[in-house]
């Protein structure tokens, strides 16, 4: 039986959005598995980041030059994980501004594509590589009262993007899979609710009430799934969307 952690030892991994939250947990987990990790983020580097490149994924040119800098560190890239996603502003669709919509599309959707392009340019000549994208349960299901149509749209779009790229690059030895988490207690969620703790706790109570496993995910809980999908243990898995949501998306009221 393939040892996931052993298969990642010595591998070169890029974690986009690895400065905080789930991304930081994932970067740390790859390092524990013995991978070399370069983090790309628009925020400042965290304490564990020895190799860090600054870039805003919404800007294709910045993504290109970020990966050019990664080339100075890695002569081969084996695995790329893109955890970047913003929550955007909650608000009625009929009043959404052009800048709010396009910012969401640029970061949550187009940014994923630029990262995939740069990853594939380096993986295709080797005939080997894996990419893990991040979406959300919101791509499948709407949460009652949570008005962010643009977020739901971009998250569904990322799922389809991952499938289309899996179809296209599979013959060249590159796998692409997507993780779509449900509720989790990280900073992005706090931003989504404008740091309104009371509303957030009410929201959490409802979310937990509807979740078979009775809680939200912790930031570090997505890392094992990410490592698995990136690794050779998932060598025949591609084009999939996996939803670690504690079962929240299953039911209807």
């Amino acid at each position: 039986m393939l040892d996931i952690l052993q298969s990642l030892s010595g591998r070169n991994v890029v974690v986009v959005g690895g400065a905080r939250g789930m991304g930081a947990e994932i970067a740390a987990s790859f390092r524990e598995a013995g991978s070399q990790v370069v983090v790309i983020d628009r925020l400042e580097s965290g304490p564990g980041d020895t190799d860090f490149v600054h870039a805003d994924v919404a800007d294709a040119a910045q993504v290109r030059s970020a990966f050019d800098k990664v080339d100075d560190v890695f002569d081969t890239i084996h695995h790329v994980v893109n955890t970047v996603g913003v929550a955007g502003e909650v608000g009625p669709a009929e009043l959404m501004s052009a800048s709010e919509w396009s910012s969401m599309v640029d970061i949550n959707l187009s940014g994923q594509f630029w990262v995939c392009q740069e990853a594939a340019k380096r993986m295709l000549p080797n005939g080997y590589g894996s990419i893990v994208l991040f979406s959300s349960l919101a791509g499948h299901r709407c949460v009652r009262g949570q008005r962010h149509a643009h977020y739901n749209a971009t998250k569904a779009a990322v799922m389809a993007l991952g499938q289309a790229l899996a179809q296209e690059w599979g013959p060249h030895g590159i796998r692409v899979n997507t993780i779509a988490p449900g509720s989790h207690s990280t900073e992005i969620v706090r931003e989504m609710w404008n740091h309104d703790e009371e509303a957030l706790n009410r929201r959490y109570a409802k979310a937990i009430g509807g979740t078979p496993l009775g809680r939200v995910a912790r930031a570090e809980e997505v890392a094992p799934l990410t490592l698995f999908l990136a690794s050779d243990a998932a060598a025949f898995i591609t084009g999939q969307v996996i939803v670690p949501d504690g079962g929240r998306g299953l039911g209807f009221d």
Partner: protein
Amino acid sequence: MINSPNSLAGGSVLVVGGARGLGAAVVRGLVGVGAQVAVIDHESDAVEGLDVTAGVALVRADLRDQQALAKAYEEVDQLLPPPRAVINAVALPSGDEASVEMTESTWRGQVDVNLTGIFWSCQQAGQRMLRRGGGSIVNFSSLSGIQVSRTHRSAPYHAAKAGVNALTRALAAEWGDRGIRVNAVAPGAFVGAAPAGLHGGDEERRRQDDARLATSVPLRRLGVPDELVATVLFLASDDSSYTTGETLVVDGGRVVEID
């Protein structure tokens, strides 16, 4: 043949992207059931296959631009009562494009029309229907929003159309309590409706593609445009009054099977 008058007769309906192709077929179908129709489109001065005496107003606009589309809707406001239905027959076709070489402008071109453009139209329609107290929006999605095409690579087209499906659900959830329904159709292959760029202008390739589909699709033929129009009219009218947030696939069973 579209049967029977329904709740659309005598009411106003707007078709965005209604100048050509399947959108124009929807316009003709709506005129046929007695709706008052206006069209917003980015090009063309007339609706394909429709006599000018049919009285369908056509307003030009680039739907990628929120302000331009808002102005176009305001022009339509001067011509018709607030629409009871809006059909977003928007599907900018892609060619067969490799993702690793794709330029930013190709990516954006697809997303800006097929996802963003539909959102702006839904926003304009939603504003009017919220004031009016109800209405029905029908978005054109695609088989590519559900599965991956083996014959036409376009990552942004697939992404945008899956985005349209989620947008359809989100808007249905947001506006449902105020009488607005939002649904989508995902068309398969229809006779005479292959998008212009799909086969790169190569007639022989189009013929071969049609022939392949006619023998492989479970219903063993391409669709006839009226068959899609019937579904659009069903979703636009009160015949579907308890259906919202859905994407109806009209493809002769094409996505059901694999080799």
